[in-house]
């Protein structure tokens, strides 16, 4: 019997659907998180510019982005609530044993979301009546609240990767809990900064990408120029930072989660002078099929010299490490992440060069094509980063302290598969609706820009949920200053 089959025989049947469900819902939620964390910041930068320079175009962009924020926030909340339930529905064993050790991070997160929800309500609904600068400053703490929420989540995740802050008593129950140690685990710092920068960078490229498409379609007015330049510049500044942080986090897992590193780099035997594989697939016998092999490079990257010793997968028992397939998944997602990170650097250099020489955007259509793709590529990269983190930790849910199979719910596999089916169907609907709402807003705005707004001012279509809504029937204010403008 092959090792994989042997491992499968030892795992409860409900493990597979539980994992698939967790992975699917997390992967969906995370697509909204970059905008959730960083869109307020990008919007506030534009808002500031608009107020500072009394620039109506910048203010219009900021208003439109906050309309997008409203819709995106609602979907983020629905998908996030599902995740919180799943901790209990899928992994009761983990929460029952470890909830009080690592749960405090979630406590911070929940309070942060509370603050965020309040501030967002004020910001979104404050455009019309608040004084412009008061409105801006009431929105200004939003990025901080978002960073605080991310703090809690990442603390919890980093703890799962490098658990500490407790001792085990004779029955294996955690005692002597030290909250500070459980929050500030070895992986916390590297993960947090790499993650936070990823969020701002991704939001920047995603927003800029929208205007890059408009630019390619020939809409080269000041509106598109500004809508592209501000978020793109934010992302461009962060890209090299992210590259350095990525290099750092990789070295951190080399030191602190050596088996995950071995999976990410397809290292089978512990050795020095280890080659680097670009892509390629790990076989059950430890050989690598396909891929580009660069001699010595892995040792050099990890320890700056070729004789750095790297721990291999085979150094631990087969059921204490990711399977060959899982290792290949980790390796591919890691490589895709690093590739996209490097390609983005080239894009930024192109931008910086033109700006430095001509104080202008690049002329080439290829630049805008790449910029349009950069947003999607960043989202893909975020997914890849999480797959590296999560699949690389297998078979542990709490690294070296609890297996995923010990944490899983006793509920039958059939129920979980059914639930997975329902959740997938519902999410397809929700995300489809989300996209269609965004597209509708976009086409409406485009029509408005071309001066034919009246054509659309009818029907239920005009009230986009949570977005711009029509005036209440009574007490509608008359015409007054444009919201957020100085007059």
């Amino acid at each position, binding site marked *: 019997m092959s090792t994989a089959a042997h491992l499968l025989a030892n795992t409860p049947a409900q493990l597979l659907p539980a994992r698939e469900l967790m992975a699917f819902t997390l992967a969906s939620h995370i697509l909204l998180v970059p905008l959730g964390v960083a869109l307020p910041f990008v919007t506030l930068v534009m808002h500031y510019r608009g107020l500072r320079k009394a620039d109506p175009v910048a203010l219009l962009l900021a*208003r*439109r982005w*906050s*309309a997008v924020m409203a819709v995106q926030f*609602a979907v983020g*909340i*629905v998908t996030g*609530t*599902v995740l*919180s*339930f799943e*901790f*209990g*529905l899928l992994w*009761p064993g983990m929460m*029952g044993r*470890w*909830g*009080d*050790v690592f749960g*405090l991070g979630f*406590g911070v997160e929940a*309070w942060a*979301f*509370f*603050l965020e*929800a*309040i501030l967002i*309500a004020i910001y*979104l*609904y*404050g*455009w*019309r*009546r608040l004084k412009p600068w008061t409105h801006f400053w009431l929105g200004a703490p939003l990025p901080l609240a978002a960073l605080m929420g991310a703090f809690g989540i990442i603390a919890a995740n980093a703890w799962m990767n490098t658990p500490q802050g*407790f001792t085990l008593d004779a029955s294996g129950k*955690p005692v002597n*809990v*030290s*909250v500070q140690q459980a929050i500030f685990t070895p992986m916390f710092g590297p993960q947090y900064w790499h993650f936070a920068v990823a969020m701002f960078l991704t939001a920047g490229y995603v927003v800029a990408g929208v205007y890059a498409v408009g630019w390619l379609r020939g809409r080269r007015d000041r509106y598109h120029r500004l809508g592209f330049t501000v978020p793109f510049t934010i992302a461009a500044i962060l890209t090299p930072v992210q590259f350095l942080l990525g290099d750092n986090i990789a070295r951190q897992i080399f030191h602190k989660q050596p088996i995950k590193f071995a999976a990410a780099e397809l290292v089978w035997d512990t050795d020095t002078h280890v080659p680097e594989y670009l892509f390629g697939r790990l076989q059950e016998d430890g050989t690598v099929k396909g891929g580009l092999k660069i001699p010595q490079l892995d040792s050099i990257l990890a320890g700056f010299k070729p004789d750095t010793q790297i721990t291999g997968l085979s150094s631990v028992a087969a059921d204490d490490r990711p399977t060959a397939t899982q290792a290949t998944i980790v390796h591919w997602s890691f490589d895709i992440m690093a590739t996209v990170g490097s390609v983005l650097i080239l894009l930024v250099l192109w931008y910086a060069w033109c700006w430095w020489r001509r104080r202008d955007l690049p002329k080439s259509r290829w630049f805008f094509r790449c910029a349009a793709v950069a947003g999607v590529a960043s989202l893909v990269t975020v997914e890849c980063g999480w797959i590296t983190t999560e699949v690389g930790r297998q078979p542990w849910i709490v690294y070296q302290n609890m297996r995923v199979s010990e944490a899983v*719910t006793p*509920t039958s596999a059939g129920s979980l598969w059914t*639930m997975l089916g329902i*959740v997938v169907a*519902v999410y397809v609907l*929700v995300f489809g*609706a989300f996209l269609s709402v965004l597209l*509708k*807003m976009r086409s409406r705005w485009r029509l408005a820009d071309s001066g034919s707004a009246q054509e659309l*001012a009818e029907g*239920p*279509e*005009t*009230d986009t949920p949570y977005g*711009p*809504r029509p005036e209440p029937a*009574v*007490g509608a204010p008359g015409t007054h200053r*444009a*919201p957020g403008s100085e007059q």
Partner: protein
Amino acid sequence: MTANVVSWILLLAIAAYACGGGVDYGAGFWDLLAGGADRGKRPRWLIDHAMAPVWEVNNVWLIFVLVLMWTGFPVFFQTVFTALWLPLALAVVGMVLRGAGFALRKPTRRLAERRIYGAVFAVSSLLTPFFLGVVIGSVASGRVAPGTTASADVWANTTSITAGLLTVAATAFLGAVFLTVDARRFGAHDLVGYFRLRAWISSAALLVIGVIGLTVTDPHASYVHHGLTHGVGLVLVIVAVVALAVTAWLVAGTAAGWARYSSVAVVALLVAAWGFAQRPYLVPTSLTVQQGAGASATLQWMLIVAAVALVLIGPALVVLYRLDTHGVLEPLTDEDVAK
């Protein structure tokens, strides 16, 4: 000591969600019963209007409840989520459907599609609170104990089902009271009477289901039953009934705005009565607060985090409510994002 404080905070968060979330679910309930597309147009318009700005903030209370449970009382969390898997799974699916239905209904133009999405939204507004109520009822019924695995008789029993129905009645009551007040606020005078009638009907339903719940005794639930019919528990139940009567009286008068407070009091008092009735147990009669409590260092830190958070959030909340009551908060209009 810390564990006790945290358990009271947990109860408070449950009460807050029951009230805040309850208003939302209640709005959905009346949406369901609003009738055909033409007849239901006006009430649905008001429901959409009253709900949109608030449900995000209300939802955070639920997250608090979960986090407090798994961090403060991990074994309790594990027990509840294992034994009551199905009602909880159905509740969360309902929650997603509800959000989706609400979000999808508005941007859709075709009437047939709007009907489907609207129905999804409304039906799940009924099912989610029902199943959440069932969960509370099952915990109170004493059939859940650490190690219990999921099975239908944990929750398919009179106590649990009555609790589910009671929750639905409570949300319908809250929704109708708030919508009565909103109708007045938005100047929709035809809807004031419409929702006032519904507020009365649901008050009566709440009372009837409550009385049935207390008389149909379930041998398993004797501990909580005793707590609700004696001492502090009984006092709280009686005060809740008084508040219910006051609410029914207030919605009829000109000072209807106050009915919001008294209706919230009804629900909060009922939650409090349940909490008092099952003291000192998290799960009667198998897991006490002390037995279920997580590490004391963590509990202390939870209180510290909560204190710091209150300092940050308090002012923000005050600003929000001030701005809201002064009519400063207003959604962006199409015109605002058009130019």
